């Protein structure tokens, strides 16, 4: 079902290197895909935040339904949670790397 997309997509997205990386300038792999992921998450959060504000505006103008507003709110909240999780993972990964004995 499509509402499990995020759940199903995470293993697909995470390990793959960023496809937009320019081949001429090799950069450390792990950091790039993580930061790309975080950027995506942040973009989505701000999009959904704006979306939920827009929904509220429409509701106040009587053009939209209450359930649409509630669902938009939930989506914004969920995407925020995802972003927090991604951030946590990045921080944890960074700390793990910093602990590596050289």
């Amino acid at each position, binding site marked *: 079902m*499509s509402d499990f997309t995020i759940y199903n997509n995470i293993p697909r997205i995470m390990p793959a290197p960023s496809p937009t990386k320019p081949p001429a300038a090799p950069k450390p792999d792990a950091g790039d895909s993580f930061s790309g992921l975080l950027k995506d998450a942040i973009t*989505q959060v701000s999009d*959904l935040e704006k979306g939920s504000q827009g929904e509220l505006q429409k509701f106040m103008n009587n053009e939209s*339904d209450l*359930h649409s507003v509630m669902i938009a709110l*939930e989506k914004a909240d*969920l995407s925020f*949670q995802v972003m927090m999780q991604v951030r946590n993972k990045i921080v944890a990964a960074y700390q793990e790397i910093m602990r590596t004995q050289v």
Partner: protein
Amino acid sequence: MNIGNFPYVENLLNVTSKRQQAFAANIANLDTPGYKATDVDFQEELSSSLRMTSTSPAHLTPPGAESSARFIEVEGKLKANGNTVDIDTQMTEMTKNGLQYVTLVQYLNQKLKTLRSSLNEGGR
């Protein structure tokens, strides 16, 4: 990355809440002479919703869009004053509609709960 796409449920909620308007109108006009009972052609809306299998959220009805289902006149027994509203049928159908709505909300809440716990627990 795709966040909680609930297009099917949203469509159903749209249709169900729109249908409630039809019931409200029928109940309000129980005794209005010449009034014909109305409903939403939700079967059409439901089956078209089911047929939509899309990989991109852009293909589906944007959230918040007023359901495109239209109000239609329904068959009913004609009373002496030209009114076709049967109070008992309307009351039962309306109650069923309300039940359908809260069930949908319940379904939505369950999905959201699952998503949240997968976010919180799934990382471990």
